[in-house]
């Protein structure tokens, strides 16, 4: 049988579906998996001035020892920024606030990080000191980990579920999905990719087993401040990328698919596909004129069906 639970976390819906006949244990393990989500959110939220992340952001100019969760999330974000030459950049938090993405979804409280004096900041202003699990920020800034932590929480929940003996399940954090094992029919999970222009339909589906799929798109979260802009941001130009309506990445890890679907959206069809091929990630891009771009391996690797 299949058991489905839904939660609200990280300003999106989290769904866990488990195929299992050990019904008594499911509750406990799902609770534990969900606890991972809330724990990461509490530490890494830029929508809470009392989160560990926001405390760090205000302590520029000194080495700050942080928790391992925060350290790993920031390290991953900085590595992604380096890999993509700044097409992905976690230091965009203050600009995001100013573009209207500043409201805590549970309390409604709005963030206004006036301690950040300049928007002239980049991932190069973050130094990671591995031996001490310390972080040195050269300037005050608001670090945005939203493109990393959902994936990270999914990966963590995957580990929690597997350690408890569950192998066939799917975890979906608002469209960022890890598909483990097989579905109720003993087949790989069938995952549709949402059609940006008709959201109740999908443009095709992939069949996945023990892999993650994340889609980045400009159609769910428009800016309330600037017409035509949305929650995706090109950190180098301070504007939303224009070319793609959606960008899907498949990888063995959700955090990798999450961060690089965001990065590739900014990079666009040309550079983005090249980068994804170089990194051997499977990627599908959909432009606003409904053209599709694939990495070479996308169709073969993931049994793509349109």
């Amino acid at each position: 049988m299949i058991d489905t639970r839904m939660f609200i976390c990280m300003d999106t819906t989290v769904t866990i579906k488990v195929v299992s006949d050990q019904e008594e244990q499911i509750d406990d393990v799902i609770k534990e998996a969900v606890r991972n989500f809330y724990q990461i959110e509490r530490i890494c939220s830029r929508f809470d001035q009392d989160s560990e992340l926001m405390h760090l952001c205000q302590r520029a100019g000194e080495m700050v020892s942080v928790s391992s969760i925060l350290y790993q999330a920031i390290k991953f974000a900085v590595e992604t920024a380096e890999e993509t030459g700044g097409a992905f950049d976690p230091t965009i938090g203050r600009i995001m606030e100013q573009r209207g993405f500043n409201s805590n979804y549970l309390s409604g409280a709005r963030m206004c990080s006036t301690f950040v004096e300049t928007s002239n900041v980049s991932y190069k202003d973050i130094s990671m000191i591995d031996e001490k699990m310390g972080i040195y920020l050269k300037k005050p800034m608001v670090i945005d980990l939203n493109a990393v932590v959902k994936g990270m929480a999914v990966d963590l929940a995957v580990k929690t579920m597997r350690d408890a003996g569950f192998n066939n399940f799917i975890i979906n954090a608002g469209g960022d999905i890890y598909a483990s094992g097989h579905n109720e029919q003993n087949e790989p999970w069938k995952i549709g990719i949402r059609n940006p222009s008709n959201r109740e339909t999908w443009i095709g589906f992939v069949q996945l087993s023990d892999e993650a799929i994340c889609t980045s798109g400009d159609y769910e979260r428009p800016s309330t401040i600037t017409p035509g802009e949305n929650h995706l941001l090109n950190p180098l130009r301070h504007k939303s990328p224009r070319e793609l309506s959606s960008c899907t990445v498949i990888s063995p890890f959700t955090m990798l698919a999450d961060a690089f679907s965001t990065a590739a959206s900014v990079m666009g069809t040309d550079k983005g596909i090249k980068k994804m091929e170089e990194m051997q990630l499977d990627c599908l891009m959909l432009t606003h004129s409904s053209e599709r771009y694939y990495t070479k391996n996308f169709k073969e690797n993931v049994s793509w069906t349109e």
Partner: protein
Amino acid sequence: MSKISPKWMALCTAAISITYAAGYVVTEPKAAPVSAAAQQIQLHPLDKGSKSQNDQHSSNSQANQGSTKKQDNQSGSSSQTQSMYKDGSYAGQGMNRIGSVSVSVTIQKGKIERVQITDCTTSYPENLIDHLPQQVVSRQSSNVDNVSGATESTDNFKTAVMEALSKAKA
């Protein structure tokens, strides 16, 4: 299965295992989606970003106005913060443009521990198709297990969460 580079394999594996280990030694109270301080409505000077504040938000802050005016300097004191909420589970319901939803908010030690969606007859997320009427199922993802898309917001659940939280007010 993609063969990602050893470097990224190592980065991901390390992040997950270190974070996983950390999950079991954390001493702070369990699972509150946001710290107690953030759960208090904060009346900030308006940021540029606040001008187009929508009705929902302004009514939320009105509802909470009398309660608090927390400011930046109370860092680290979140566990001492006087709680707004009584422990327990509270149900909330809401309608939105695509259907009705119910949530159950669990408060533990005065903090929001989790927000579970208990019923959802909206036309998406599609993953609850089991509970949907037949005509809805037929026009959407009846034959996929799940759908990957840009991150959906929780706007559809806001009214339901607010209703539950208002019952939890101490």
